[in-house]
């Protein structure tokens, strides 16, 4: 009883601690917005508790490995480093395979007990490291890349669909049917989105495609059936030409587009949705210290609305 009671108290304390962290997140890093596009940043979604189902692990040191030094990855890495209770070191893979292999070998030979890979390339490179806890982040096609089978746990790259749909519905109350087109093996993430869609009474049509041309073809096929598309960052079916054609086609047909890249706002994107780095790092901490199976979803999302497109689409723009 006493043991059970202590355990309950410990869990409650952890939950409280976690809740404190989530309720008081660090100030998110400001993302430079493209000047020509007027966007409105949506209010972040309310914090929800993250379920933890595993026992905390003893972590001595954490290696944070970046695929490259892009802004979002670096921000996540730095924020994670600041939140870790243990030693940590940030690694960036080199440009050449030799440099990348050297970096991986260095990590493998180090005292780090956990490796956090931020980005697809980093995850795939550290996949070969054995005897260390492996966590990935900012990898969209983790299924296709067989990261889970390789012993990874991870954090989803997709921002909170619930938050997105809430803001989208605010902007476009008549929104009922949306579509998502991605490459194969994304069922888990789509299912999570489907749940959020259902919550917001949106009909989600999902279609798998194999390449950029199929992607565009599918969008054209789906265009008459939906009011908007949510573009997800599946590199396998994305090309610049395809994205341009797709967005051009959607704009011509008055479709609302949610994009994953702020740059795409000036090509006709209505909503730019991105991850909240604080949310990502919290989910990473949870994975590092409380190993769970699979992938943790994000609870938050940063949302920017393209006022110009909204006006063109005659949507209500909340001030």
């Amino acid at each position: 009883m006493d043991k059970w009671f202590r355990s309950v108290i410990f869990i409650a304390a952890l939950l409280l601690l976690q809740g404190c962290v989530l309720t008081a997140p660090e100030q998110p890093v400001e993302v430079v917005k493209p000047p020509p596009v007027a966007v409105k940043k949506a209010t972040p979604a309310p914090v929800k508790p993250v379920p933890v189902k595993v026992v905390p692990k003893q972590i001595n040191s954490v290696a944070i490995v970046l695929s490259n030094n892009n802004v979002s990855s670096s921000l996540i890495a730095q924020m994670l480093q600041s939140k870790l209770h243990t030693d940590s070191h940030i690694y960036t893979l080199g440009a050449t395979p030799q440099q990348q292999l050297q970096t991986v070998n260095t990590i493998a030979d180090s005292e780090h007990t956990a490796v956090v890979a931020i980005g697809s390339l980093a995850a795939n490179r550290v996949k070969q490291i054995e005897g260390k806890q492996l966590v990935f982040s900012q990898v969209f096609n983790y299924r296709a890349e067989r990261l889970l089978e390789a012993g990874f746990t991870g954090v989803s790259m997709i921002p909170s669909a619930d938050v997105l749909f809430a803001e989208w519905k605010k902007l476009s109350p008549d929104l009922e049917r949306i579509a998502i087109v991605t490459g194969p093996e994304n069922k888990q993430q789509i299912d999570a989105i489907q749940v959020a869609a259902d919550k917001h009474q949106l009909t989600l049509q999902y279609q798998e495609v194999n390449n950029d041309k199929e992607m565009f073809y599918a969008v054209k096929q789906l265009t008459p059936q939906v009011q908007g598309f949510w573009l997800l960052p599946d590199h396998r079916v994305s090309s610049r030409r395809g994205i341009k054609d797709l967005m051009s086609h959607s704009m011509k047909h008055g479709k609302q587009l949610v994009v994953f890249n702020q740059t795409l706002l000036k090509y006709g994107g209505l909503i730019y949705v991105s991850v909240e780095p604080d949310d990502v790092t919290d989910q990473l901490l949870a994975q590092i210290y409380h190993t769970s199976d699979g992938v943790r979803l994000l609870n938050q999302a940063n949302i920017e609305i393209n006022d110009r497109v909204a006006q063109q689409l005659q949507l209500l723009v909340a001030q």
Partner: protein
Amino acid sequence: MNKQLQFIKSSFGLCVKSVAEFLHRLFADARNFRDAVTARIRRVAIFSRRGNSSLVRRFQILLLTWGVAVYVIAVAGFWLLSTSVIQNTFQLQAERWISKLDELSIPLYVSQDIKEFSTIESYIQNFSEISYVRFYNGDGETVLAQYTAENVVLPDAGGFDAAKFIELSKNRRRDGNPLRSNFVSDESLMRMVVPVSIVSMQADEMLDFDMDGERGESVAIIGYIDLGLDFGEYQESLARHILSGSVLISFIFLIAAIVGRNLIRNALKPLLDLHEPLKKLAQGETDVWVNRGGDEEIVAISNALTTTINAIKGRDEELRRLADYDALTGLINKRSFDAILEKERERVIAERDVSALFFIDLDQFKYVNDTLGHASGDRLLMQIAELLSNRMRSDDVVCRLGGDEFAVLARSVDGDGASEIAASIVKCMYDFLFIEQGKTFNIYCSVGVALIEDDKSSAEEIFSNADMACYSAKSQGRNRYHFYEATAVDQDKLDIGWSHRITNALANDKFTLHYQPIVALEKNSIPNYEVLLRMVDDDGELVPPNLFIPVAERFGLATEIDYWVIKRAMTVLEGLNREGKRLRFYVNLSGQLFIDPEFVERVVAMLEATDIDANQIVFELTERVAVGNIHQACHKMETLIEHGFEFAIDDFGSGFSSFSYLKHMPVKIVKIEGEFVERIIDDEVDRAMVRSMVDIAKACGKQVVAEYVCDEDTLEMLKSFGIDYAQGFYIAEPAAQPASFNGAVDIPDNVTQMKM
């Protein structure tokens, strides 16, 4: 990238080389074609500058040829341009079709299910230009699906280098421009092969990629689209349109040729109108009318032509006038008169009519001419011509035959009428006074009349008859008319024959001189000879002067004979002088010579041309000549005497002139008329006359020569009278050479004999 650049460079180099070779061949072929066409064109008569084709036809064919050439060039250019436009249009359209097929082929390539081809097929069937479409798999060999239009023979599969496309896809930026083969055109079929490619981005670039960049994309080829386009239908349509247009233009050319021919004819009409006048001019006709209408250039040509024609006409008329009329008097000349006379003779014969021909010779014309000069003579002739013209009827013909001779043809006049006309002409002339330089001259004429009344005489004979009648009138004392009589004409004809012989002798130097000594009765005098003229006839016989001198005087030939004698005498003297034989010749002069205005000058010129002394020449002139025109004769004698010549009065006493003439006449020698001398022995009166004449001559300071000394008694008697020289057969007969006296220059042999 380097391989790509090398490929582009090599392709560009090959293209440039091919274009250069093509242009070289094209220009060479063009030059050959031009030379061949030029040679052929020049063989065509219409383009030959040497041809005689019509100007209108030449213009028309040149215009038509030019029009056809322009049309052919235009059609060729239009064909090339249209074909190029069609190809370019097809190329652009093909790229759009390829883009659409690329999109439509995605389900086909994804599913690899031929059923997906139905959508593509239904799309392709909308375009008849698409000949075939093949969809290859990524290996570039396996045909996934294909479409073939009707009546199209599908080419063999493949035929393109898939590996090259793959290489390009790896190295070349996939910037939206499709990777495709160059268009390959074979006649009307155009082929294009385009790879079906897919592109993917790098996973870690998705959140912050640059849409304008090219980094992070990879290209993969999943198949190929082979598109064949047939633009033959367009070419056929173009050819049909050109053909129909050509038919229309040919029709327009035909109409233009007809209209153009008329237009050219109208435009060139003033020029063409010149053809006929020019043709007539070329044939020698001058009675040509030239139209002066048309353009200014044609007017200029017409004016020039008209001016030329008028000039030719004027000259022609002037030549005709000069040929038919006498320039001085304006009367018709002998040539025209002969023609008129012949026509009149024919008319008279035909109409049994009678007409008369008058031959008129002025009696004093030569005197007027020599006295007052040629200008006065010309004025006299003009007045005579006017006088005759006014006297005759309008249908009569007055002609100047030449010199002072005129002829009149009086039509329809019988013998009596002719006599009246001849008498009136003589009277008219008798009444006429020629006033010139303050002097008045009576002009007389001799008229010969011949009737034109039958066909027995030709026009020439009639004219000759009138001439002889005129001669008879002159012979009868002038200032009269004479009717031609056939029976009295023999002597006249004979004289005319002599005149021809004299003229011929002068021309052919058929005269010769004989020399008769004139013996000085005192010693130490140089030998004197009278030169005597002889004519050599065709048989070589000598003709005595009494047979031809009167005729020569009658026909005005005496003057030239005198000059011949003077010149020959001087030449002989010159030759004798060179031989050391100094002689003196007595030369007889005719009366006509003294009225020759050139007499003195010519004689002096002859003297200067020979190496003799003037005093070796003694000119003899008869008392009749000397006294007849004593003033003029004295003046000329004095002039010649100043040059050294001497003069003698011949036949003194025969004219019974006043002795006072002798006193004033500048003669040195007097030759007493031989008829008195030869009778002094028997006739007391002649003896007294000779003695008186010798005395008078001596009293006047003249030397005396006695002619016709035929015997010794006469010579002795003459010596007693005191004569200085003797001449006659008793002393010596005339001889052909002065040297025939055996070198005895001073005393001839016969004289010596005489003295013995």
